[in-house]
């Protein structure tokens, strides 16, 4: 009984942690997209988000793409933000550790569903 309670507790904590992680990223992406919209009066046409290991620790990197209205030039805007290692789900953290460059998280099902909702 005690073991079951511990397992349930750990699972609940894990799920809560995962939800918080994705919610943080989604909130961040939406904020940056809104900022671009506010400043330039046009919405980004796409975005990609990565987690990367740097000398200063883990970082989220989000790229946004939009087309400038007058010149018709494509612009790429990149926002970078430090991320606390303890907030990153173990599965993604393992991927980041293995990846030589950066790990894309925008293609993960959780994030795509949440953003699309």
């Amino acid at each position, binding site marked *: 009984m005690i073991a079951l309670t511990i397992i349930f507790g750990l699972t609940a904590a894990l799920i809560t942690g995962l939800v918080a992680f994705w919610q943080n990223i989604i909130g*961040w*992406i*939406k*904020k*940056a*997209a809104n*900022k671009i919209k506010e400043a330039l009066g046009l*919405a*980004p*046409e*796409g*975005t*990609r*988000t990565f987690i990367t290991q740097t000398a200063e620790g883990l970082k*989220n*990197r*989000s*790229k946004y*793409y939009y*087309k400038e209205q*007058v*010149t*018709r*030039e*494509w*612009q*790429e*805007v*990149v*926002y*970078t*933000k*430090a991320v606390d290692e303890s907030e990153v789900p173990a599965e993604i953290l393992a991927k980041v550790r293995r*990846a030589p*460059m*950066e790990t*894309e998280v*925008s*293609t993960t099902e959780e*994030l*795509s569903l949440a*953003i*699309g909702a």
Partner: protein
Amino acid sequence: MPLGRRITSSAEGQGPAAEKDTAPARPAPVEAPAEACPFPAVEPQYSFEEMILPPATYDAIQDALALYEKRELLFGQWGLENTHRKQRQGGINLYGPSGTGKSMAAHAIAGQLGRKILCVDYSQIESKYVGETAKNLVSMFDCAKRTRSILFFDEADALLSRRVTNMSNSTDVSVNQTRSVLLLLLSEYDDLVLFASNFIANYDPAFLRRIRSHVKFELPDEENRAKLWRRYIPPQMPTDVDIPRLSAQYPGISGSDISTAVLNAALRAARLGEGLVRHAYFEQAIQRIVASKEENSELGTLTSRRTVSEEYVKKQLRGDVSK
């Protein structure tokens, strides 16, 4: 917003740019009398006496200006004409966080040299027609030369960002043509050009090589914050403000933030019909600014903004780039 793919189909349109020719040659200078210049120069609005700069920043600007103020000594008497002839020209790039006085410094530089300043208005030079932007640039340099004005590119990364390496359409050709013409103009221009930017990392390396001096602007330390509070609070304003306390308690703010806070504190006191701009109003005003900055910092750092080709964007948004 969908991820890893295009959001709308509006990107397919090429607009009028696709209908025009993409001649790579540099457009001919526009001949027009000086009084008919479409890019008006103005008298400098600020001087160094009005500014509060860290000594290192001020010294770096003055060192850069020695090239223009001590030209005869340097290139004539000291013989640099024989060894550094090509370094007779070159621009000064003022870079650092917003609100730190880069634009004011550009005016102050022009003022110190006794010249007018021609502030580049991108909306006047950028055109959706291929080749027109380059032609406008040529005309602008021509205006600056004929009116003996100092050219000033504010937010210069918009124009000096890296060129597109993988050109896929006429838009990309146009972007590169504009930047190439600007490179040529800078190489041939025998006068001072000023640039200001928050994002020096975005500059095309070819532009960086052509700009001789780079001067870093930083947020003020406590001592300079106190000087800025004193500068922006008029002596006749009735107030019980405690400047040392404000300066110590609110780091990470710019001169522009302090100026805004003073105005907002005064507005509140005036609205409430009080004869005194209370210390608390300054605190509330600066707290609102700090809060808005913190909200912005939740976005993280804007690390890059650059022009890219449509081909590149297509690749990125399909997610088929190699990882």
